[in-house]
């Protein structure tokens, strides 16, 4: 009997290698779990039949293109679209024999922090189905936590991997920009988008990252990255941890979240790390504003291709202009439209310098401010999300409140830095996520610190209501 709620990818790989289960049995176990629990959760938009292969099952966020498997990016504009090619990250998974379980729910074009912006309905949090799983990658995070996949691929622009992992209580990595190919991934904001792993443990997360990372000749923004070491150290001697004041004392951080993060920091000291307070004043003050100029600007251009000419939805119109306008009116939801308008405005003649141009300069300032801290620290820590999972609908009508969900994840994303979410406890019965931020290409350090804390914390990733 395979218990998908507790089985790690590493454990499943062990079972496969020892011949205790077959790949088909393993795949079937997850399909069974999906049949039992996903009606309530709606983590998947599309479930696949077993494609065969000699490796582990995996779930793929629906913004990541999969050959022969529908890829909608959570949008009506791409309803029924079936890619003719695999994203590089998918091709690398397939080359490892991974079997695709299905495509997971996402805010439309990865724009959102709750998965409520999906054109196909929201995903529910496995810890409390009346609450959101976070977003945009709520589907992948919920699937991993609910045992509907041993691990999953997500994508992160301003927090879409880390924040859902925090709200669902699992491990998610946003890699250094440029270490993972974006080829075949439906673009939201090209200079920020990164694919990353979502898993039950730090070691699983590190392993999956090692599968997808590396230069890709189809993505000229990719670079070679250092080889990945699976973490095994349980001590933190010599590790210098910085605690940025602005990320830890920000307005809106719930007391329960603050307490859980403080406890984790105290534990790090016990494990031998040195901890010191530090400051990222401009990054936190201007990060969100900078992000909400750059990301919508790029999105306004990236989403222009959904014009009804070649694929996806097409509405009828008397001429080209009318056809495009109707197609985009019908195909795109409110959040993409809102960001397209913001971004179009920010790039317009006469406003470019004041908005997009300034945001690019601020981005450099944010990067430098982080660089300076990393002369003194190996990692920075903070809560990943200011709050635990919030009720469905609570922020749906208030875009600004929703944007603030990513207040703590956005600065390091803007700086192109890697970040890891590790669950560090519960508040009001819901998971709290600890965010670890490192310098460029410091994934190994993040995994090492994350793994040691994970071992010491002993967080049980199985939602209470699923425990028998």
């Amino acid at each position, binding site marked *: 009997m395979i218990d998908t709620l507790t089985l790690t990818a590493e454990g499943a790989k062990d079972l496969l290698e020892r011949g205790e289960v077959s790949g088909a049995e393993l795949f079937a176990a997850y399909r069974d779990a999906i049949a039992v629990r996903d009606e309530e959760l709606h983590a998947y938009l599309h479930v696949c039949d077993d494609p065969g292969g000699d490796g582990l099952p995996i779930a793929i966020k629906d913004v990541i293109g999969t050959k022969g498997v529908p890829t909608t990016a959570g949008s009506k504009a791409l309803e029924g679209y079936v890619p003719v090619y695999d994203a590089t990250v998918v091709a690398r998974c397939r080359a490892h024999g991974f079997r695709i379980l299905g495509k997971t729910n996402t805010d439309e074009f990865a724009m959102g922090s709750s998965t409520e912006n999906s054109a196909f309905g929201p995903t529910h949090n496995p810890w409390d189905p009346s609450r959101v799983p976070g977003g945009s990658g709520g589907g992948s995070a919920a699937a991993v936590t609910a045992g509907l996949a041993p691990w999953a691929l997500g994508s992160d622009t301003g927090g879409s991997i880390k924040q859902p992992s925090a709200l669902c209580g699992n491990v998610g990595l946003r890699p250094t920009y440029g270490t993972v190919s974006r080829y075949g991934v439906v673009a939201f904001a090209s200079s920020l988008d990164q694919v990353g792993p979502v898993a039950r443990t730090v070691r699983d997360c590190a392993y999956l990252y090692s599968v997808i990372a590396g230069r890709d000749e189809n993505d000229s923004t990719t670079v070679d990255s250092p080889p990945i070491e699976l973490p095994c150290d349980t001590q933190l001697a010599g590790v210098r941890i910085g605690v940025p004041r602005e990320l830890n004392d920000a307005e809106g951080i719930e007391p329960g979240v603050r307490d859980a993060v403080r406890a984790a920091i105290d534990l790090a000291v016990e494990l031998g790390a040195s901890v010191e307070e530090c400051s990222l004043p401009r990054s936190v003050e201007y990060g969100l504003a900078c992000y909400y100029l750059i990301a919508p600007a790029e999105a306004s251009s990236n989403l*222009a291709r959904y014009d009804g000419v070649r694929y996806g939805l097409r509405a009828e119109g008397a001429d080209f202009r009318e056809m*495009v306008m109707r197609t985009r009116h019908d195909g795109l939801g409110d959040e993409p439209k809102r960001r397209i308008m913001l971004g179009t405005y920010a790039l317009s003649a006469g406003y470019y310098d004041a908005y997009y141009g300034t945001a690019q300069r601020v981005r450099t300032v944010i990067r430098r401010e982080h660089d300076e801290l990393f002369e003194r620290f190996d990692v920075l820590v903070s809560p990943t999300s200011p709050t635990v999972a919030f009720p469905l609908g609570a922020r749906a009508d208030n875009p600004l409140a929703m944007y603030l969900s990513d207040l703590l994840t956005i600065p390091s994303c803007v700086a192109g830095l890697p970040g890891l979410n590790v669950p560090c406890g519960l508040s009001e019965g819901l998971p709290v996520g600890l965010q670890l931020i490192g310098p460029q290409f410091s994934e190994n350090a993040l995994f090492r610190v994350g793994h040691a804390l994970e071992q010491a914390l002993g967080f049980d990733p199985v939602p209470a209501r699923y425990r028998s």
Partner: protein
Amino acid sequence: MSGWEPVIGLEIHVQLKTRTKMFCRCENGFGGTPNSQTCPVCLALPGALPVPNRRAVEECIKLGLALECRVAERAVFHRKNYFYPDLPKAYQISQYDEPLCSNGRLAVPTPDGPVTVGIVRAHLEEDAAKNVHVAASGRLHGATATLVDFNRGGTPLVEIVTAPDLHDADTAKRFLQLLRQTVVELGLSDAELEKGSMRFDVNVSVRPAGSDELRTRTELKNMNSFNFAARGIEREIARQIRVYEAGETVEQETLHFDPSNEDSPPIRTKEEAQDYRYFAEPDLVPVHPPDEVVERLRAEIGELPGARIARIAETLSFYDADVLVTGGLDRLWSEVVAAGAEPKEAANVLANQFVATGADPAAVNAAELAKLVRARAEIPRAAFDDALAKVGEPGFSADPYLARKAVADAAELDPVIDRVLAANPGQVEQYRGGKEGLLGFFVGQVMKETAGAADARAVNARLREKLGAGG
């Protein structure tokens, strides 16, 4: 047009004939089955990303060097955003404020000396796809649907923008011809106007002579021949002068010519203030051309056509030098002259007779052609023409043709001349009556009878003798 000075600037697009497209590995060289040369990148499928064609970058740099441009240490691709069915991403990847090449010049030889035209920039971008408008009947007229062939989409293009340094249509035409010749010689493009592998737009304005203001300009589009462009520019200059002299103002507009009908007046459209929302293409990193690559490319550039016109014009007339170089004949001319032919004679043969044969200058054995040119006066016209028609064939030798000496011997010519005179008694009488212009008629008849083998000078002399003797 005295009192007015035209100001002309050009914007030229040249398709590079690289093996693959600008940002994907699809074969470049459209024309196959529609949409057969496409991939996720040039169809702009979700998630597809551009990867720049290194060869295209080098070729743009090479052209820039030929135009004496500064090659950027850091060049950036930008997105130019607008919706159109032939633009699948709804943005064109182009260059904006950091182009690969800028600040160059091209000296255009003219009969009155060289005119130096500033090159503002030469940058790299991708071509759009091709829209085909069809009706239910399948005919163009009354089109009800548009089909898009993406084979052309993504072809590398170099855009060259000149400073408004041109002041007459003829020099503008010469500039375009010289640029075309330069591009073709560098092996970068076929630059064929009919096929659209070279296209250009012309900006025209006029101002009071002696002023340095820049007045409202109009843009002339879709002209597919250099002569057509020159006439279009002249007409537009004249029109603007008439407008100003009538006390009115020229409006900024675009004139779309119908390339299939040069006589039809252009369609005028108001220039819309398009906001292309340029921003640096985040899917690409900046290009940093290494010095050694730039120097290698520079070393690959030989003597350029403009310089060769100037050099050859020291030996021949400007006109001959221009015809030889822009006709791609000057290399062969130099070789033929080096092999002993008289320069002017060689130029005449090449520019007039050789061109008419359609032979490839590169295939010609210059030494053999030189022999022919030298013997032109001595061999029969027919032998010369026959030889020239075959001069491009492999293994061609002039010797058999040189052996066909013209018949100048009176003993051989006399019977033929006598026959011709006997057959045309009326003309003989008229000649003797003073109509000496008929001599040419008799010469022609004799040449015809001898199938071109007679020596025209000898025939002339002999005819005068015989016609005079009878009188």
